[in-house]
């Protein structure tokens, strides 16, 4: 039994786990902060909505689609100069967060747009009929009504970020996924592979459970 875990350096695993959590936390925070307004803007400027602007919507939608169609591994590398400009380094947790945010924000923005579309049009109409401003409609009616959907989208995004973060090893980002690839895969250390994947599985499970709880807590339908 001792033989199977012989390759494992628990301190390394601990550091990698911490790095993964930091990457996840940092990138999720910025993804939510950036993706939410972009999603709202996508929704508002789309056809037959409050601020219908076909040109703005088309442009925004196009940029989102471009970012979503670039494979993340490529994005990681292409982003390096920008990352260095923003964080001063392209390595480690700090180097991984900008590409993670750029990769996940368009994804989350689309999920926000979809969640807003699920809100009954009648609610917008009723709020408008009360004499609400567009800002009031968005902040006081649309977002609260779409909250369960947005939280579900945030959960999916967080889990996507876990798997994106695993790829950041390519640019020296660190974390559990990096450990799995460098030791588990490239050095045939199966035990490292099993432990890291297991830890990632636990992380994903926890995220999903937390997300589901939040969705249920805020659902009143």
């Amino acid at each position, binding site marked *: 039994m001792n033989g199977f875990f012989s390759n494992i350096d628990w301190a390394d695993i601990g550091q990698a786990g911490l790095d993964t959590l930091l990457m996840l936390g940092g990138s999720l925070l910025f993804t939510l902060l950036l993706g939410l307004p972009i999603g709202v803007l996508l929704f508002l400027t789309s056809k037959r909505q409050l601020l219908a602007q076909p040109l703005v919507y088309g442009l925004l939608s196009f940029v989102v689609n471009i970012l979503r169609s670039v494979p993340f591994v490529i994005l990681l590398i292409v982003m390096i100069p920008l990352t260095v400009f923003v964080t001063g380094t392209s390595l480690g947790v700090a180097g991984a967060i900008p590409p993670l945010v750029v990769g996940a924000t368009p994804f989350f923005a689309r999920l926000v747009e979809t969640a807003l579309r699920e809100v*009954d049009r*009648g*609610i917008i*109409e*009723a*709020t*408008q*009929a*009360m*004499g*609400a*401003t567009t800002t*009031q409609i968005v902040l*006081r*009616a649309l977002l*609260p*009504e779409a*909250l369960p959907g947005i939280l579900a989208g945030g959960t999916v995004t967080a889990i996507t970020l876990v798997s994106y973060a695993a790829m950041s090893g390519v640019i020296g980002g660190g974390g559990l996924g990096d450990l799995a690839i460098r030791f588990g895969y490239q050095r045939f250390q199966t035990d490292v592979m099993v432990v890291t994947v297991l830890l990632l599985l636990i992380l994903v499970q926890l995220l999903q459970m937390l997300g589901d709880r939040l969705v249920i807590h*805020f659902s*009143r*339908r």
Partner: protein
Amino acid sequence: MIQFKNIYKSYRVAGTDVPALQGIDLRIEAGEIFGIIGHSGAGKSTLVRLINLLERPSAGQVLIGNTDITALDAAALRAQRQRIGMIFQHFNLLSAKTVAQNVAFPLSLAGGKSKAEIKQRVAALLARVGLTEHADKYPAQLSGGQKQRVGIARALATEPQILLCDEATSALDPQTTQSVLKLLADINRELGLTIVLITHEMDVVRRIADRVAVLDAGTVAEIGPVAEVFLHPQHPITRRFVLEAENVDEGELVDDYAHVPGRIVRLTFTGDATYEPLLGAVARDTGVDFSILAGRIDRIKDTPYGQLTVAFTGGDIPAALQQLAGRGLAIEEVRA
């Protein structure tokens, strides 16, 4: 007073203009309950939404009092909308807010009231619509009728002068419809609120409206006091509504009477004449025999009325009809 002046509205669908309203001129008096009836696609949803400019007319003016609301700027329009309540077929309550929060919503949007003032007003409104004990429930926990009561309380929160009802009872069962209509009629009486309601159900109009406009293909086919319009419908579309409400089909009627001998007329009584023993007296006097083929005694809002289809045989039929007409009955020839 709400006035539509030469209103046209068309929607652009797939590159072509589809007309919804074609030259509407209409005046709704302050304090009345005004019904707008029409089949789906007749333009009634569009018409009611012109009053708070949820839809803008392609041409024409909408006056509320003396203000042309189509000329208001955004802020003035929002202030105007706060003075107009609206209730909807599907209630459109915010699912994430409790009953009390839904009723408080228009007040907090409008601003200018303290939390305590809002709380007090919400409590009064909920008591008015009989939902005090449901204040902390979410809409999903309520029945359809209760949801519409929340909608009504919410619409009244800002003390509007006008209440718009968009098919407000169409999603409710007949019993709930009655109680909601009664609530609307009470509110109209107590608050002197002008109510504009659109519906495709004649029964709704008959029960509470003072006047009605029948809308057909974007134009007003007929307009007048409800009793007048429904007892003596002039336009084919109105006739169809009347027959629909009575669950009869015009062709079927004539077929049914094929084997009935005599002269068939439809007699309409309104007001006190409804309860007088006229037919018997006239029959004795002129020697005619009569058989009643169809009929109903009902009320239109507060006016009792009766409508009987009668076959006369023998005696002096013209004299009988003359006597009936002399007592204020309306007589329509069904078959000579």
